[in-house]
């Protein structure tokens, strides 16, 4: 079992009336709400929290890419990963990831990931998300009709840039390069392990399964609702005839650990509520550009994580509902251990990612959550899936 500490880097200072006064935390969130002096401090906090997680024994540190948004102050996860290469030495640096279609040329990703792999001594996991519609279609203006096609082509170019022995010409539909030849090349051979974060689209399951990559479901709705998506992935794996090694899968779960179940509510409820009510407050019109998902996926019934339907589902949730419905696994160490084990087994997930800094949670509380998790929970789930080999773990990580 590999356990990773995931950080979204949320802006912690949105006004109390944010979700009533402003329609969206993403795309057109007004930047008069942003205080640069506060964010200067937040970045140091966030990096402290990631470094603390390594010291506490987490196997990996996860960062990711989002744009135009107050819920994740990380348009470039590569910068954060670069900062971490110098202050950490054992943990995998899981960059989940670079939205390939947004880079022109996508060789930039091959180069920066190669640099990160070298800087970290082979600890990089290369994540390639298609990217959310808010990020790709709205913030970056990429046509939803061709986003996926661009993504696939960019992926092919990056992998070729890492693996072909000689200079090559790449005559793509979206990128033409006469002399593809990146310097430096990555440390890991043939290339860093590839993880694909997805939101439940049918196309991504099948593609990931065929290419033998790790599929990561970054869900905010918890393991109970994540079941259908992960089942869909495992069915795709079966269709391509691959084995059912749990390390093919990653899953993100929000977790809050405290001394007792009651204390967990006192400690964490305001921050969890901030996350669900403010950080996921996305205007319906931005939730999905027309054509972002294929009709096939829309008809498969997978719902978007944000937008009108999602808002309705999480409106006026109280602590009991967040916990009962599995959005958050929270409580005493015993409660968390029991539910997390259920999560890991029911989803068949070998790479567990936990979100321990949630919403408006300040550093001291994030440290408490991290420390309790590492001390009271981690040792009890470590041995899950011990009979399987993790073929998708970076060779330079401990």
């Amino acid at each position: 079992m590999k356990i990773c500490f995931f950080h979204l880097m949320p802006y912690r200072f949105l006004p109390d009336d944010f979700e009533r006064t402003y329609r969206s935390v993403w795309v057109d969130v007004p930047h008069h709400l942003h205080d640069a002096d506060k964010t200067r401090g937040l970045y140091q906090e966030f990096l402290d929290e990631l470094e603390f997680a390594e010291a506490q024994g987490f196997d990996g540190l996860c960062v990711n890419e989002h744009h135009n948004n107050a819920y994740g102050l990380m348009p470039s996860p590569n910068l954060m990963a670069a900062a971490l290469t110098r202050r950490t030495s054992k943990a995998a640096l899981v960059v989940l990831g670079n939205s390939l279609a947004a880079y022109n040329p996508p060789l930039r990703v091959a180069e920066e990931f190669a640099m990160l792999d070298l800087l970290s001594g082979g600890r990089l996991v290369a994540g390639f998300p298609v990217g959310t519609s808010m990020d790709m279609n709205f913030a970056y203006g990429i046509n939803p009709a061709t986003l996926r096609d661009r993504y696939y082509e960019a992926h092919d170019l990056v992998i070729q840039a890492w693996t072909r022995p000689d200079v090559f010409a790449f005559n793509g539909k979206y990128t033409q390069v006469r002399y593809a030849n990146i310097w430096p090349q990555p440390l890991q051979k043939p290339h860093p392990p590839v993880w694909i974060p997805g939101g439940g689209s049918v196309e991504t399951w099948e593609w990931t399964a065929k290419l033998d990559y790790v599929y990561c479901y970054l869900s905010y709705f918890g393991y109970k609702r994540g079941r259908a998506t992960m089942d869909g992935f495992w069915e795709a794996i079966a269709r391509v005839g691959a084995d059912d090694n749990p390390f093919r899968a990653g899953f993100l779960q929000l977790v809050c650990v405290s001394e007792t179940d009651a204390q967990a509510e006192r400690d964490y409820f305001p921050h969890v509520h901030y996350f669900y009510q403010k950080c996921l407050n996305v205007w319906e019109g931005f939730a999905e550009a027309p054509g972002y998902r294929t009709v096939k996926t829309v008809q498969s019934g997978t719902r978007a994580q944000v937008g009108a339907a999602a808002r309705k589902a999480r409106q006026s949730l109280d602590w009991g509902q967040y916990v009962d419905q599995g959005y958050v696994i929270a409580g005493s160490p015993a409660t968390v251990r029991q539910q997390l084990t259920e999560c890991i087994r029911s989803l068949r997930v070998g790479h567990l990612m936990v979100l321990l800094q949630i919403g408006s949670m300040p550093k001291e509380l994030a440290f408490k959550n991290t420390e309790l998790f590492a001390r009271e929970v981690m040792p009890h789930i470590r041995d899950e899936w011990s009979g399987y080999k993790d073929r998708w773990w970076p060779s330079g990580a401990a």
Partner: protein
Amino acid sequence: MPDARTIELRGGAVAFKVLAAGGGAPLVYFHSYYERSAWSPFLDHLARSFSVLAPSHPGVAGSTGVETLEDLLDLTLAYDELLTALGVERAHLVGHSFGGMAAAELAAVFPSRARSLTLVSPLGLWRDDAQPADILILPADELAAVLWRDPASPVAVEWGVGMGGDPDDIAAQVESLQRRSSMAKFAWPIPDKGLHRRLHRIAAPTLLVWGDADRANPVVYAEEWQRRIKGAALRLLPGGHMVLHEAPEAAARAVAELAGS
């Protein structure tokens, strides 16, 4: 009722469903991507004076090719190929909203195709100080208020998509998504694909028709079009962005006057 036929192009990579009715000089109509039905009272009026041909854009109402067409230029080439396949050398071209943009592209890239050109609140130009509404993404209730002068009028209510969960509503929602997804292929994220650099090539007599209460594509754009197409006239009619369906008879009369002039 109009006749329907399907014209395949490029070995089947693109197919246009074309509705046809009436008699007289050929008139090709390019719809807005927002109609629920490929035929309308406006076309009935036109069919009294013209041989009306109404192809549906790719992705809706039986037309295909969104995946294989590259972009707006490729769509324009496909429409040129369609006219050839229909045996139409020159025609009166009429287009509404996105269809106005398509008709203007066709008349700019192939000036000899157009005998006259009527553009009804065409998209295709951009002004930072008067941005068109983002109609591709507006939720259904907000969209109706932007498209129609009076969203409570019978024609607007009939057009509306139910947001409920019964099978008719769901089918209509999927259809709406397909329309907007298809249009996005050619118009995302801003419906300015360089038309302003080509409009000087248009040689046909040109009429702009605008709803006086157009909230989707403000009437200031009429000036922009008039500035770029020599001699283009403007007719304001009572209506919103869907003026063709709010004032179909007056709009059809304006087309006929231009064609007869």
